[in-house]
């Protein structure tokens, strides 16, 4: 038996009758002024859509207007409550600071997907680079494309920050794994300003005609807990 942990909260923030993966009851393991919400299982629970949803649901059940937990990544395992307590003591300073920062805040997300297909090299173009000159030309073209993508992503990110910087407490961003031209941005936003965030983000999306933009959230602050 062991424990699947979901999130970190201040000590005394009780799970009540919350249930987690497989319908198992969620308990709080406490140490160093913190609580780790977890459920007990015979072995680590495999990832699935249902398990991912259940994990997120427990974290959301811990959120109140004044408490926003530190979300834990799925797939962690503690052999016993004693191990969890050790981890709480080990990370107490960092998690206490995050809890203070997260209190009353949520994560909002943006995703910009470019419209239209990416430029692709002509079939066999790379294979035809039999000469050194042709090879260097192809390499230069790939570097140019990559630089152009990077410049555009920077421009878009600056546009987003100009529109939403006053509403966001913190931001992180990155390129999509599927398409380097796609941009994702996560913002930490006070709960009371989430609607304002969504309005400003939608207006920004309408002004970027080359992209399909989506606003998601509110989320627990996964992107700021790593």
């Amino acid at each position, binding site marked *: 038996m062991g424990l699947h942990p979901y999130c970190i909260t201040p000590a005394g923030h009780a799970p009540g009758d919350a249930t987690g993966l497989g319908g198992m009851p969620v308990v709080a393991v406490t140490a160093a002024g913190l609580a780790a919400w977890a459920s007990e299982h015979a072995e*680590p629970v*495999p*990832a699935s859509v249902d*398990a*991912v949803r259940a994990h997120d649901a427990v974290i959301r059940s811990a959120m109140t207007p004044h408490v926003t937990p530190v*979300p834990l990544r799925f*797939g962690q395992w503690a052999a016993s409550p004693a191990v969890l307590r050790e981890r709480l003591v080990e990370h107490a300073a960092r998690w206490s600071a995050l809890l203070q920062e997260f209190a009353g805040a949520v994560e909002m997300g943006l995703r910009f997907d470019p419209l239209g297909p990416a430029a692709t090299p002509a079939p066999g173009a790379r294979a035809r680079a039999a000469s050194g000159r042709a090879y260097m030309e192809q390499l230069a073209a790939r570097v140019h494309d990559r630089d152009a993508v990077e410049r555009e992503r920077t421009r878009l990110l600056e546009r987003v920050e100009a529109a939403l910087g006053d509403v966001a407490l913190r931001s992180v961003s990155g390129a999509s794994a599927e398409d380097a031209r796609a941009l994702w941005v996560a913002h930490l936003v006070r709960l009371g300003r989430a609607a304002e965030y969504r309005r400003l983000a939608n207006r920004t999306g309408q002004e970027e005609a080359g992209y399909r933009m989506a606003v998601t959230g509110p989320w627990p602050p996964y*992107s700021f807990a*790593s």
Partner: protein
Amino acid sequence: MRGEDDQLSLAELVNRVLDRGAVISGDVVISVAGIDLVYVGLRVLLSSVESMRARGVER
């Protein structure tokens, strides 16, 4: 449109839960229960598994 929005929300959820969030120890072990993970989540999952294998972490 609704189907696309639902799929996007699920992809965003899977990305966050499997690839972000705090880590309490050095190892994050994720096994796949089936093949019902959306493509984005599966890539994140496989990337996680492969990177763990490269570091010699086995369950």
